């Protein structure tokens, strides 16, 4: 005799006890309450985030860039995810500080590939950090999307796994400036630049470009990186100089500008500089008054221009920029506007590349590289707010418009836009012929 038959009269159907009913309700209720979680988990089986290892200059000499690179990247990921992610999968940034140090950044490549299980690596401005990390990325077969503006990618120094599809390189930027300087400012140029590789890129490329136009560089003044006072260099500027081209960077730049102003007084030649000198620096800082009426290259305008398209405004709003190019929450927190757009555009290129190759996981890393190599023209718009782009799959380098702005009333106003054609130069490498 079973226990049930012992307790249940023959011919009757035994209903659940109150305790059992409560238990069932509790289990059912819990299941119902957690249904969204289970549903989310079930969704995660097909919609797991695509993990992007972001090497950020959080400390070291590049920290001011890193702070803004981070903000822009976060904003771009938020936008992409709000629009449905990549093939229905959200992007997720795995951010690590590279200390603006090549050894640490190389270590991060290992961490992204082997520990964080990232799909790819992204970020980093300073050239030596990129060059130090790129060999490890290639060895790990980890796609490495850099936002560096260095010529190291297009020069052929790196490898097939490293691409720069979101920001133009310094060679194309410098080349595009020469026509404006020659035609508008003057034909006899004195260059003042830091005495290391970054400065040499400017020296070599601009000198060649201005000479090709019939102009001349009458003096090249290299200033050691340890210099703190610049007065002894200004007397070296030849009298015949019509334009001073400067590209000083680092903490001494304010002193440089102040001392240059004191040297020339009210009568000065035309002055053209790269905004790299003053990225993240408030133009209304004491001592910078001398810059009024001078010209700067900008990768993307810092100040909101009157004719800015809607997608530029949307980009600035998403990043949190006020009309002066500073943070909307802190007017003294000036952005690195001329470079940081590269993070936004690079992440959108990654999205487009992944969608093109129907990216499903790390097994498709090679397919992602090949898909990006196939890209060419990219129209200006929400994905490319800096302007239209042309990607060269052979050199892994993108080309785009360049802006020249004049300091007027303490603000930068765009006075000339160099076209993509002005920035092009012959290929120096064909990465597509390299093996993976």
């Amino acid at each position, binding site marked *: 005799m079973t226990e049930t038959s012992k307790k249940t009269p023959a011919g009757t159907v035994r209903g659940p006890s109150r305790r059992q009913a409560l238990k069932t309700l509790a289990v059912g209720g819990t299941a119902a309450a957690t249904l969204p979680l289970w549903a989310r988990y079930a969704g995660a089986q097909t919609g797991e985030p695509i993990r992007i290892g972001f090497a950020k200059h959080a400390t070291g000499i590049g920290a001011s860039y890193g702070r803004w690179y981070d903000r822009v990247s976060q904003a771009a990921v938020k936008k992409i995810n709000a629009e449905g992610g990549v093939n229905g999968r959200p992007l997720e940034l795995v951010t690590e500080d590279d200390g603006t140090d*090549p*050894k640490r950044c190389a*270590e991060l490549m290992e961490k992204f590939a082997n520990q964080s299980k990232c799909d790819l690596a992204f970020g980093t401005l300073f*050239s030596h950090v990129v*060059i130090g990390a790129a060999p*490890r990325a290639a*060895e790990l077969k980890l796609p490495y999307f850099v936002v560096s503006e260095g010529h190291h990618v297009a020069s052929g120094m790196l490898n097939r796994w490293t691409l720069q599809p979101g920001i133009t390189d310094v060679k194309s930027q410098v080349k595009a400036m020469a026509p404006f300087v020659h035609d508008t400012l003057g034909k006899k140029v004195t260059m003042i630049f830091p005495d*290391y590789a*970054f400065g040499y890129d400017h020296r070599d490329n601009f000198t060649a470009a201005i000479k090709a136009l019939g102009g001349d560089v009458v003096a090249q003044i290299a200033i050691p990186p340890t210099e703190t006072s610049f007065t002894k260099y200004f007397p070296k500027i030849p009298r015949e100089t019509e334009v001073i081209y400067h590209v000083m960077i680092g903490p001494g730049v304010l002193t440089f500008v102040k001392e240059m102003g004191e040297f020339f007084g009210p009568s000065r030649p035309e002055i053209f500089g790269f905004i790299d000198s003053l990225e993240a620096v408030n133009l209304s800082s004491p001592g910078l008054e001398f810059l009024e009426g001078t010209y700067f290259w900008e990768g993307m305008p810092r100040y909101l221009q009157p004719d800015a398209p809607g997608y530029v405004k949307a980009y600035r709003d998403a990043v949190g920029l006020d009309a002066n190019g500073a943070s909307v929450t802190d007017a003294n927190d000036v952005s690195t506007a001329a470079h940081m757009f590269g993070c936004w555009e690079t992440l959108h290129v990654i999205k487009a590349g992944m969608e093109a190759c129907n990216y499903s996981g790390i097994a498709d890393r090679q397919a992602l590289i090949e898909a990006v190599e196939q890209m060419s023209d990219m129209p200006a718009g929400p994905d490319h707010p800096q302007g239209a782009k042309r990607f060269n799959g052979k050199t892994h380098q993108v080309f785009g418009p360049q802006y020249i702005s004049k300091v007027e009333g303490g603000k930068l106003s765009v006075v000339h836009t160099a076209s993509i054609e002005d920035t092009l130069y012959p290929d120096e490498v064909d990465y597509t012929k390299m093996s993976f």
Partner: protein
Amino acid sequence: MSRRDLTLHLGLVAVLFLLHFILPAYHHGVLARIMVMAVYAIGYNIAFGYTGLLSLGHAMFFGAGLYGMGLAGLHYGVPAFPAFLIGTACGAALAFVVGLLALRTEGVSFMIVTLMFSQVAYLALLYFGAFTHGDDGFVVPDASRTLMGLSLSDEGTRYLVAWVLFSGALLGSLWLIRQPFGRVLIALRENEERARLLGYDTKRRKLAALVISGAVSAASGAAYAALFGYVGATFAGVQYSIFALLWVLLGGAGTVLGPFVGTLFMFYLIDLATGLTDAYMLIAGVALVGLTLFAPQGIVGELRRRFWKDLP
């Protein structure tokens, strides 16, 4: 050398070899790099830990090895092993020249003079950028990263080469300090006047110690170039001189195992702290202050003080 000393150090070497087969990919790669950098710390320890030469310029020796190897490969296509030897020889030669001049001073003056020489070397790398590629640095060609047909960019080969180099440096330093020459170095550290009074040519021995130290540091630099494929001026900057000092102090100056333990500890301290907070340098700083307060002789030094009096 006691059997216990030998067992301990050979045991570490054996454990590191076994780890090659069991470590997950990330830690496998990390340990390879730590072993290479620990060789640099071992080199520094010979000068500072055993001879008492507080240098703030050892990055120039590391850089000499790095650039000696890398430039030989880049400009002249020298294969990996000869390029490694060239790099090591560059470090030894530089240490000899610097030693001849800097060892005319001692104490704080020696520290400042080595710092100045190191800055000269660093700025020379930038100045001759057309040849050295300046602050950008360069990627070592694949042809110079092949050893006996094996690519040094392969994870397994890289680990084993790093292990061979580290084992050689570790056991070599153990052997060195157990030799009469090594004991004289310790005597110089403890009381140079007395050593001189006993008839030792202290200047010559300090110079020899610095050359050995420079050569070992340069071997580490050359190995880094060959194994990780990048050469750059950052590695010759002052912070890399301070790193060596830090690793040795943390691990235990004047102990054979200290440089490895200090390098290992410092790497994982930073690496784990970055996973916890953006203010990871604060965690690292607090840990270092704590270690300085409670284990002023470093980790291995403290072990020696408490548990193993004759630990080398």
